[in-house]
């Protein structure tokens, strides 16, 4: 069971005067649902951004399947098998939903300019496969009926699902979700929870940032807590919940 999938070692990141991450190390095992929590501004999103190569880091490294990730080239991170969503949803607004998902297939497909211009049989077959897979994924996240709508015209909840579908299209081993339940109502949250559990059942590992404590505690196998850029706890939910440092951090930040 406990094969290590991702290991972050001593990640540091500073923005001017703000130490957003300080020597953060954590270990995610294959096929677990791993929660990353902490008060606002604790550095959770920054950890995602560093881990996926979008922000240059000040120090540390990330091993994925035992191999160091090339954090200077984000597309290689995606290629290695990490996909993510964004806290403030970043879709390709003027593309249709299905095209958004098809973009996610880019990293696993190969057709080039000449294939496209000449419409070679290989390119056509690949293109059809891309579309088929995208349709499947839209179905999987529950929005097949929105396939031909522009992403920017989708409802908030549907946009979140679409972002997950786009991430899944890259065939990740690790799916990193940044507050996927934010702004969702109770029914949508239940559906999301089902979705995440289904993903794990299909063999994926999930890294989840979430403020909804009930969701985190009910869903995650293990949880890490960040506070002011430092990891103050990492354990199963039941233990973390009772950790005085964690309680202090949340109360100190005005409760959550």
């Amino acid at each position, binding site marked *: 069971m406990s094969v290590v999938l991702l290991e972050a070692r001593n990640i540091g990141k500073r923005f001017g005067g703000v130490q957003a991450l300080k020597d953060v190390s954590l270990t995610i095992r294959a096929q677990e649902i791993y929660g990353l929590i902490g008060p606002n501004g604790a550095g959770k999103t920054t950890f995602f951004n560093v881990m996926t190569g979008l922000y240059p880091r000040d120090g540390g490294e990330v091993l994925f399947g035992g191999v160091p990730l090339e954090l200077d080239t984000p597309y290689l991170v995606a290629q290695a098998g990490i*996909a993510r969503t964004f806290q403030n949803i970043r*879709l390709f607004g003027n593309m249709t939903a299905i095209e958004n998902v098809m973009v996610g297939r880019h990293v696993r497909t190969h057709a080039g300019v000449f294939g496209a211009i000449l419409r070679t049989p290989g390119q056509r077959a690949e293109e059809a496969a891309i579309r088929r897979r995208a349709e499947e994924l839209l179905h999987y996240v529950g929005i097949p009926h929105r396939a031909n709508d522009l992403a920017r015209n989708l409802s908030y909840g549907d946009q979140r699902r679409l972002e997950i579908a786009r991430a899944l299209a890259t065939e990740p081993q690790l799916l990193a979700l940044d507050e996927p339940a934010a702004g969702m109502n109770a029914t949508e949250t239940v559906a999301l929870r089902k979705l995440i559990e289904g993903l794990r059942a299909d063999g994926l590992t999930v890294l989840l940032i979430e403020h909804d404590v009930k969701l985190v505690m009910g869903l995650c196998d293990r949880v890490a807590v960040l506070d002011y850029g430092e990891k103050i706890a990492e354990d199963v939910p039941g233990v973390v919940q009772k950790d005085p440092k964690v309680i202090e951090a949340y109360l100190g930040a005005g409760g959550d």
Partner: protein
Amino acid sequence: MSTKKWIGLALVALALLALPLVLTSVGTAWVRITNLAILFIFLALGLNIVVGMAGLLDLGYIAFFAVGAYVYALLASPHFGLHLPFWVILPLGALFAGMAGAILGAPTLRLRGDYLAIVTLGFGEIVRIFLNNLSQPFNITNGPKGITRIDGLNIAGMDFVNTHTLFGIPFTGPAKYYYVLLILLLLVIVVNLRLQKSRIGRAWVAIREDELAAKAAGINTRNMKLLAFAMGATFGGIAGGMFSAMQGFVSPESFILHESILVLAMVVLGGMGNVWGVIAGAMLLSFVPELLRYTVDPVQQMLFGKLLIDPEVLRMLIFGGALVLTMRFRPAGLWPESRHKLEMSENRS
């Protein structure tokens, strides 16, 4: 496609084929104007790949056009006494222009988009400075005087200068160029349309929409941008070669910033990224100034007895104004991409 559509398409094709014959009877000048317009539509569609699809603001596009034009001019004129056939130099010009694009793009494309704008702007000017000055100490470009007596096209022994009569219909030189340009235009339209609906085209649009998200979704943004930039430059080079052949004369004068702006205005006005929008925008901005030339001047003469506003100034005011007003009131252009898409999907279902 339905029969109705096929008939429509056939009619359009027929009209396009007959156009130069009709125009010749009005005046050969109009065929020339039309040819130039087609060339600019071609250029606009080349730039559309860069600006419209990939969202890279290239303000020196005309420089690649210049590269193509000069490659052609130098290798097919008495200047160096070289007279290579067009099927060698047209691709060569395209290659050179594409390489220039890649060399310029490589250092700048990993930076924020607006740097690219300024670098291309500067590059356009630099190319012109070199063209103007590379007559000393060795005469390469012949300086501001430009290069004259450039060979026209010559396909299968048929030259493009004299009038040929086929089936009793006289085809003038410009009319023949018209058909070649039409074929090239068709080519660039197909390239645009096919790329748009391909893995590469989607990657470009994704970069245009949100570069960071595109990176995170696994796109090698740097290579994709470079590809778009070099492809656009390549088309610029082809257009340049055709320009040389058609005009028989090139000088640095033809490659000033205004021309880059003109092509950009065509792309922006019509609707960035939408092939038909760009074509419409290019036609609008090609013909309107010509029409103005024939209407505004006489009207001014009549009213004031003299020219108050030079038609050239008016032209530039229209281009500049078109950019500003389009961005302000119709940022997606007169014929935006998304509406087009909706229509397409409605048709499908």
